[in-house]
């Protein structure tokens, strides 16, 4: 059921997917890992779309150097916890959703518990070790992982449905070295919006997801390309998983 305010707020998108679609968004719980460059546009667009519960996790404080891209945070927030800043903005953006902001470092001891009963994980991280952890949690819980990554004017995204598509380890078996990466704010803006668009389509159950394809964005040439990606049957993270799902379906 929707309040009058919600009906007005979502009027233009309910023209697309009706009460049923909006209800699906409202019932959904999405876990956004990171409140930085990618996490900002992802969480803002999920919030305005009416995704009912958004959990957003980050461990950092807002720094002046974040502000060229992390549009959830304002100049006045410098020194504040990113989660506090994110929670405040998202609640103002849409008071009809639930926002849970958790100030913690995601690690192997807490990742599964933090994700909890969420319907999907958005990878808005800035490093591969944590991404691999989220990948494992997505596989264990059999929920999608919406991957995004950026560097400078370049970005990549893919939607991972465990057991059906390659997982992050199938596509990127080895992490690149850690570095302070250059970035212009529009790049996470573009990639984060692609991720949010994927989440919305997944929750609605409509359209064609960015599965089995790696979307590659070149902002210098304004060119989007894609590369087919395949599962690795010997993958250390998801190898053999399809068999498990097939076996379960046969029962």
């Amino acid at each position: 059921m929707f309040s009058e305010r919600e009906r007005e707020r979502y009027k233009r998108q309910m023209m697309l997917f009706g009460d049923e679609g909006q209800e699906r968004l409202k019932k959904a719980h999405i876990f956004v890992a990171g409140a930085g460059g990618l996490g900002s546009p992802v969480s803002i667009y999920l919030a305005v779309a009416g995704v009912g519960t958004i959990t957003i996790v980050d461990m950092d404080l807002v720094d002046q150097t974040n502000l060229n891209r992390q549009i959830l945070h304002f100049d006045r927030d410098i020194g504040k916890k990113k989660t506090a800043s994110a929670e405040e903005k998202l609640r103002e953006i849409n008071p009809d959703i639930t926002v849970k902001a958790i100030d913690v470092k995601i690690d192997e001891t807490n990742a599964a518990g933090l994700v909890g009963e969420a319907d999907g994980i958005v990878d808005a991280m800035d490093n591969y070790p944590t991404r691999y952890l989220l990948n494992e949690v997505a596989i264990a819980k059999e929920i999608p992982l919406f991957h995004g990554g950026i560097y400078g004017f370049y970005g990549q995204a893919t939607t991972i449905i465990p057991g059906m598509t390659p997982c992050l380890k199938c596509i990127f078996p080895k992490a690149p070295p850690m570095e302070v990466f250059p970035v212009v704010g529009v790049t996470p803006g573009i990639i984060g919006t692609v991720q949010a668009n994927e989440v919305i389509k997944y929750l609605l159950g409509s359209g064609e997801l960015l599965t089995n394809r790696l979307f590659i964005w070149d902002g210098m040439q304004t060119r989007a390309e894609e590369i087919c990606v395949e599962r690795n049957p010997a993958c250390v993270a998801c190898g053999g998983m399809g068999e498990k799902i097939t076996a379960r379906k046969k029962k």
Partner: protein
Amino acid sequence: MTVKIRFFARFRELLGTDIMTDVAAGTMFTPLITTITQKNPEGYAAIFDEKGAFCEFVILMKNGKRIDIADAAKTPVVDGDEIAVFPPVAGG
């Protein structure tokens, strides 16, 4: 015979992309990329380690199919092949 080499992200910044190059019959994947990248020392260093092997995180593809780094030295390229070389981008 001619093959097309496509670099992505940082590799593209350093080396350009859509490089059409003539190769002799029997040329293998690794020496081809080595030759092309040696024209730009920074580009070479981004893709190969100090022993001249592909850095372990580099993704190699031939005509949309993944080539394992361990197999690249014995994978031949043939006329019309499209080769892609890219790094996972890590920022968020």
